[in-house]
């Protein structure tokens, strides 16, 4: 079954604006990861946030995790056209050794 679900499914913004997408999940997790997929390419890892962490930063990316609400958000600040991609959250559940469960992604389009 699908564990992570991203919201919104699609997001269209102008360069320079911030983009925020959310991920909700169902079970207890060890960690949550965000990946980016450019059109026609494989996934690229962005950030891993552990269940005991609440916020993490990497460059223009900010990820939050609220385990009480079983949700996470990814914020891209000062977006660029090159940020156009699909963004996926993936959860590592505590009761499933090894498996990452991916959502269907948020498709982000950044127009110049």
């Amino acid at each position, binding site marked *: 079954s*699908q564990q992570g679900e991203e919201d919104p499914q699609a997001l269209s913004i102008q360069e320079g604006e911030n983009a925020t997408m959310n991920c909700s999940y169902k079970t207890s997790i*060890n*960690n949550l*990861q965000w*990946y980016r*997929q450019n059109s*026609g*390419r*494989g*996934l*690229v*890892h962005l950030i*891993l946030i552990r269940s005991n962490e609440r916020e993490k930063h990497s460059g223009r990316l900010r990820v939050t995790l609220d385990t009480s609400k079983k949700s996470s958000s990814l914020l891209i600040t000062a977006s660029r056209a090159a940020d156009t991609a*699909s963004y*996926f959250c993936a959860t*590592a*559940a505590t009761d*499933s*050794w*090894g*498996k*990452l*469960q*991916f*959502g*269907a*992604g948020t*498709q982000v389009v950044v127009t110049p």
Partner: protein
Amino acid sequence: DTAVSQTPKYLVTQMGNDKSIKCEQNLGHDTMYWYKQDSKKFLKIMFSYNNKELIINETVPNRFSPKSPDKAHLNLHINSLELGDSAVYFCASSQGAAVSQETQYFGPGTRLLVL
């Protein structure tokens, strides 16, 4: 240098055929995976191998058979291809055995179209 590579990139074939997809990683990782991404971009794990041993085997038809000749290679053989097998298949690798704690590195994908 490509870290995780897959061949072929595109595969168009007829129903009922048997085909293989190859994956190689030059990262020195111990664990490799196969994922299937459907037309709605939903990505689902199929198999995972750690040091040539199968550790994850999701509910996948037994027409799909992974083979890991060494820890740098994980191939996927598909027998009696069906229309529903059309998808993008991604290979990935990660460093250690605690795979849920690890970053996964993905290949570029193999786009399979079954006619």
